[in-house]
């Protein structure tokens, strides 16, 4: 077999990753047609898209630690895809809410966003992700310039924090799962801080 060029290989890997990342969506569609989304399909879809958005978002934040701890330097090449997929699921999650909970009434939606604290958090998280998604193209990176772009994209941490608060505030009594996500996020922060202090002490920041 002919050996793939580096570019072709990356393209292939990204396609495979995209397919994997679309599995939660494929499962929702499959289960919908199998009538196995349960008694409350809208709730099931909301939960599954929300879970996917948060998990993939956290995975995108884990890229640099993965690079360092697993010496998997190429991981960075997949970060944009992860971030955009997280945004895609967030958008899907919001659209389900907009259509089935608010029946496309933007007035009701904004009233709800203003009124219910956990919705405020989720919405803020998505709003923060929007400019990051828009500025994710090569062209935009060039236009903004590296340092500025990187500063902007630090906001992804804020989006993740808000999403975890969103989850924390929506559960009634059992906070186990949001606490696990919160723990993951704390680890990611810790890893970032460790690196920064190391870099500072090496004076090559």
């Amino acid at each position, binding site marked *: 077999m002919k050996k793939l060029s580096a570019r072709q290989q990356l393209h292939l890997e990204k396609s495979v990753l995209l397919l994997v990342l679309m599995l939660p969506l494929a499962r929702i569609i499959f289960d919908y047609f199998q009538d196995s989304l349960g*008694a*409350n399909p809208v709730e099931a879809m909301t939960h599954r898209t929300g879970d996917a958005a948060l998990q993939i978002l956290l995975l995108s934040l884990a890229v640099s630690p993965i690079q360092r701890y697993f010496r998997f330097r190429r991981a960075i090449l997949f970060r944009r895809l992860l971030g955009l997929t997280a945004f895609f699921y967030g958008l899907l999650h919001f659209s389900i809410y907009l259509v089935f909970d608010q*029946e496309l009434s933007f007035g009701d939606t904004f009233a*709800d966003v203003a009124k*219910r604290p956990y919705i405020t958090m989720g919405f803020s998280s998505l709003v923060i992700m929007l400019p990051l998604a828009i500025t994710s193209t090569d062209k935009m990176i060039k236009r903004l310039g590296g340092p500025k772009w990187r500063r902007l994209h630090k906001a992804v941490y804020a989006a993740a924090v808000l999403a975890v608060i969103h989850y924390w505030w929506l*559960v*009634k*009594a059992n906070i186990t799962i949001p606490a696990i996500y919160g723990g993951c996020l704390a680890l990611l922060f810790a890893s970032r801080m460790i690196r920064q202090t190391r870099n500072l002490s090496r004076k090559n920041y």
Partner: protein
Amino acid sequence: MLKYLKCRDVPHSSLRMHKALMEGTMLIKIIDPTAAREHEVTPQALYLDRRRLMASTARSMIAAGATGISGLMSSMAFAAKAYEKVPKGSPFDTNEALTPLKDVTSYNNFYEFGTDKGDPKINSGSLKPRPWKITVDGEVEKPTSFDIDDFIKTKKLEERIYRLRCVEAWSMVIPWIGFPLADVIKAARPNSKAKFVAFTTLLDPAQMPGQKSKILDWPYTEGLRLDEASHPLAFLAVGLYGDTLPNQSGAPLRLVVPWKYGFKSIKSIVKITFTSTQPKTTWNVMGPDEYGFYSNVNPNVDHPRWSQGKERRIGELFKRKTMMFNGYDQVASLYTGLDLKKNF
């Protein structure tokens, strides 16, 4: 006309006996299961219930003179619905479409068996609803305790088709079997100090594995004002869809207060206590500004997490408007002079 149904499609409680007789997924021959019934019932009242379908199937098989071991076995297994002969057609019934049995029994908030809605169905097998003791005590002339079956025997059972509105903004329509709570109150003869009725769920982490984690302050407790509890709508259920209560629905005895949010309708009751002061209720202790003692269904008072103006009827995609007192206006007089915004 011949149809084949898989035994596996039948809810397991009615299958138990059947399974004991023959294993697994054997096919049963069925002679036109629905045709005989369709003209007898309005489509709206038609139970979307496989068990009933199977029961009528068994009957029509016998009527058709079907013989042989398979016919005999199915009639033995499926004719046994505990409360099939209980009178139907209460004046309190709603004529809205019933929520399918499958949804009623697979989508439950019963934290004693886990916090996911699917958990109670999966985890409630460890609950043993027989033998079961019920204690009635407190401010009454004669505190007593009963065995559940003796308790039920003294009551006139009836069916009530009620709306159930959960605080999480979803709702169902369920045909309950049971008796008015007022019957229990009358029999207990509360004294002049009795102002409230408190209810307690079983406390037994071996039977209720969810109680092993301190998610709520176990045992679950609920309460009503004595006049609320005496209202003819307040109901104690021992069954649904013509059969014994499934464990996940609060076997063997649960409260049904259709004008209040679902969490007031406490499940698997072991104790009914008459008190002079307002009893502690689980969710109210957990979040006093979220869950009031009254917790009447009220579209005008929003919960911080769920807007209460609308609800999703299970089986529907879009939401419908929520009605004051869940549509049970006859209870309004219980609350004259009470600020329902403050006393939510």
